[in-house]
């Protein structure tokens, strides 16, 4: 039985519903040593800002139960370097390229959007990074500022715009509705949950930044619940993520209403995780005699 894995995300055709979570996949080169990254539905690269960012001091990672905290702080080489040295390699791939954009102010978001122009397939607006002092998550935890950032970037953007949402809010579906009103063509969720891990011998947090973003299997039930809530509220497609390590995990997100999923932290433990997830989604569909992945999106039946 042949199975259709193609999905349409805001007018962009992905060959399958699996992408990479921004900030977990660099610019693709590292994983390309392990598998053909053109097999992905899309490659979502690390956050890019106008100017280069050195990121936070180390330690930037702390292991937690079934997951980890990170406080990288959006280290990146800046838009000019990205366009000149990283993008040409990405353009050679037979997959869609999504660039995550970061900024401290709305003007910076707009500036990086203009620099990137139509050189990539989609943009993902990062208003949810918990690891930077200004900008970042500040825009994503308030409906009004989320709307303002989205509409400003949407006006400047020449390609479909995804807005990545923070789970560090009371009602994520309200933020999702605000960015939909602001012109977002899709939403992605969840970014990491703000957390802290303490070294009890030193009586200090392990992370130099004290707090960081929690990811991995530990966050998955929260992410699935949030995708479900957002799916009830907005009409634009949802890219679901948070702790996906297998095809079965990905199917949960698709059933809850996501049109696509991203694999992130699982790739830190198993560099072949992304490919495994694609293969296991296909196996699930075959096993259940479903010939099109689109037929399971949002097909959750509540008790």
């Amino acid at each position: 039985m042949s199975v259709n894995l193609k999905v349409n995300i805001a007018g962009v055709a992905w060959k399958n519903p699996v992408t990479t979570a921004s900030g977990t996949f660099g610019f693709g080169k590292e994983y390309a040593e392990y598998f053909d990254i053109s097999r992905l539905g899309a490659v979502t690269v690390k956050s890019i800002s106008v100017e280069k960012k050195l990121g936070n001091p180390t330690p930037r990672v702390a292991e937690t139960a079934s997951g980890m905290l990170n406080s990288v702080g959006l280290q990146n080489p800046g838009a000019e370097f990205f366009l000149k040295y990283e993008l040409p390699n990405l353009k050679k791939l037979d997959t869609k390229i999504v660039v995550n954009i970061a900024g401290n102010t709305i003007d910076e978001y707009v500036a990086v959007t203009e620099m990137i122009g139509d050189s990539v397939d989609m943009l993902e607006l990062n208003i949810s990074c918990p690891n930077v002092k200004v900008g970042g998550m500040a825009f994503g935890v308030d409906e009004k500022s989320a709307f303002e950032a989205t509409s400003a970037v949407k006006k400047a953007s020449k390609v479909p715009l995804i807005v990545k949402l923070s789970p560090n809010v009371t009602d994520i579906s309200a933020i999702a509705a605000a960015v939909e009103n602001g012109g977002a063509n899709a939403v992605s969720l969840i970014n990491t949950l703000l957390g802290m891990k303490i070294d009890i011998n030193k009586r200090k947090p392990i992370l130099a930044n004290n707090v960081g973003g929690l990811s991995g299997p530990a966050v998955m039930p929260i992410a699935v619940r949030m995708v479900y809530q957002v799916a009830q509220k907005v009409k634009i497609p949802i890219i679901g993520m948070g702790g996906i390590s297998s095809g079965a995990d990905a199917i949960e997100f698709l059933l809850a209403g996501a049109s696509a999923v991203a694999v992130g932290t699982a790739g830190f433990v198993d560099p072949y995780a992304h490919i495994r997830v694609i293969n296991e989604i296909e196996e699930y569909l075959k096993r259940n005699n479903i010939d099109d992945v689109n037929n399971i999106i949002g097909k959750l039946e509540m008790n």
Partner: protein
Amino acid sequence: MGLCKLIQKQEIASNIFDFVVETHTGLQANAGQFLHVKCGGTAYLRRPISICDAWDDKLRFIFEVRGEGTRLLSQFRVGETIDILGPLGRGFDLDLAQGDGDIILVGGGIGTFPLLLLARELELRVKKPIAILGYRTKELITLTDEFEAVCEEVKITTDDGSHGTHGFVTDVLADMAKNGKISAIYTCGPTGMMKAVAKIAIEHNIPAQVSMEERMACGIGACVTCTCSVAGYNARVCKDGPVFNAEMVDWGGF
């Protein structure tokens, strides 16, 4: 690399385990590279452990039980398989030596282990090195015979004077740098020790390489968590290193 069978296991000092695994791949391992090891159970992330020795399809690594991950790893039994990724990272450059002076290895504690493979490679391809190996106390001294087999000389120091020279490896190195002719220094150990070694190397204009350590997640360069400041940029210890030229590291931050 995948699943590797544990074929030899020994506790060579209190809480220090010596593992030999069979890889089936015959992958080349360079001195200074590391393995990213799944410890099983509740340890979610892999643990980076330096390669101590490599021959045929065998890899040997030695680790100290420091936390939950290494405690779980120490419980593997001979015959069981361990999920290992690697060899990863950039190892030591064997062509570092300039001139015909001595090649010096400076190791501290568990940082001495990766220097054994380096000593073997140097002996084979360049010349026998001199090893200065430092330990907290006599009970923690390991692998001396193996170092002696491939080194011109092995000098041992202990912090408490229970064996060898009473003091630090850097005291011995400073003397040698002042009075002898050194053409290269390779070091691995606590960051403070390596910083002091780098200072001596830079003062005497001796080429030196250091093996850095940092908390790590992916091990393959993607997550950018294990950084250290090298030439003004946050380089990835796992991919750009773990071995760096000593003069390139921004030691002010340590």
